[in-house]
């Protein structure tokens, strides 16, 4: 088994096929999309492959250390940064092929016109524990 992160971008990924902003959909289309995502997570739990899923607020702030005894320096929010993470799902699956298959399924979530969005998702393997037997 290996864990993979399925990463969804607000920005930074190539354009989806059905690339219509969510606020331009009908309310029913939004509901259908949300239900698809919930059903997807529930199905993964029933197959014993679900680990975690979270959504992130689109606005974030950059923070850095500014020296001993000084408050942290903040900058932003950067509404126009190049890459923006919308959320993620963590899965625990038998093979890399299975991870790709599930990401593709998630990418087929319905969007405008009830048609699949075909959005690009990023699949990233987790770094594991090192194996015990090394030679």
């Amino acid at each position, binding site marked *: 088994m290996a864990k993979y992160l399925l990463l969804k971008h607000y920005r930074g990924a190539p354009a989806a096929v059905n690339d219509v902003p969510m606020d331009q959909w009908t309310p029913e289309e939004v509901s259908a999309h949300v239900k698809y995502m919930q059903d997807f997570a529930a199905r993964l739990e029933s197959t014993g492959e679900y680990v975690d899923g979270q959504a992130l607020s689109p606005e974030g702030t950059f923070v850095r250390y500014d020296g001993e005894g000084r408050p942290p320096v903040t900058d932003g929010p950067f509404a126009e940064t190049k890459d923006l993470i919308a959320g993620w799902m963590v899965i625990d699956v038998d093979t890399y092929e299975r991870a790709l298959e599930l990401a593709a399924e998630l990418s087929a979530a319905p969007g405008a016109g009830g048609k699949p969005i075909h959005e690009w998702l990023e699949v990233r393997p987790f770094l594991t*524990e090192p194996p015990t*037997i090394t*030679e």
Partner: protein
Amino acid sequence: MDDALLRTLTPSVIGVLVRRGADFAAAEDAVQDALVEAVRVWPEDPPKDPKGWLVTVAWRKFLDAARADTSRRVREVRVEAEPSPGPGEEVDDTLQLYFLCAHPALTPASAVALTLRAVGGLTTRQIAQAYLVPEATMAQRISRAKRTVSGVRFDQPGDVATVLRVLYLVFNEGYSGDVDLAEEAIRLTRQLAARIDHEEVAGLLALMLLHHARRPARTGPDGRLVPLAEQDRRLWNTRLIAEGVDVLQAALARDRLGEFQAQAAIAALHADARTADETDWVQIVEWYDELVRLTDSPVARLNRAVAVGEADGPRAGLAALAELDPALPRHTAVAAYLHERDGDPATAARLYAEAARSAPSLPERDHLTRQAARLNTRLRG
């Protein structure tokens, strides 16, 4: 309260219930319930016959569950109140459970989870924590696994090789958690070796003992990986080494070589060297030749290239490496190592940095990054 005893009894109690007519999935659930009750009751009121107590309580739990269920399962329960003891002396229930839980129809992850629960007597929560997934996910994985093997006859002999692969996975890919999976894998393999006279079971047990012996030396105080050549060999557990060597020698004496015996032999040769310099690399290469012949595994070939580099010099190692697919995991790390030994630190530093980027684990990435940094610092100075 003897947790180890409870867990040792788990598979044989499941076996008794199955022989009395319970289906495996229901029997396994009932025994888990009985274990929970044992943990509650035994400290105050320890039973004279722990196994008999577990069988009685588990059977009652099973009947309760069957009655609470629809009439469907009750119909399947042929024996109601006082079950006959049933056969079971001639067939080892615990052994049958090893086979069932490693059934080839199961995916490796399902077989591992089911084995740890039904043979190992661990709770779903413990298994979930060990593999860093939510308890609900692990519960589903286990119940799907039980459905997959629901039609398998309990009394048919299985394939030892599939059981060994599952136990190897538990040992080798064990994560850290409350449950020490390496210890658990050793316990389960020891228990299997006591039940079945098979040279590869012994080979796997020896392999585990010999690697487990090195555990105190394998990581530094800050959690960093310490490569074999740099380990403080005084920290190796000599008792485990002695046992591993004994088990291995008895297995090898039967002259039916298999991959686990060959791997254990390599580990034994390392254990035999008081310092890294005293390692008998020529013999290790011979064992890798056997291992490659037995498994044709690319990982064995990669490790063989390292051993050739030690036995016949880095050029010979690089030549052996050149015959392998560069896409193999850890191929670049091996190339980096051999190039450094060949007196080419610039190439080695570049390859170490490249290997770090594709390292499959964090400690390995840190180790490879440190190697690149060490060489780059030297090259600048």
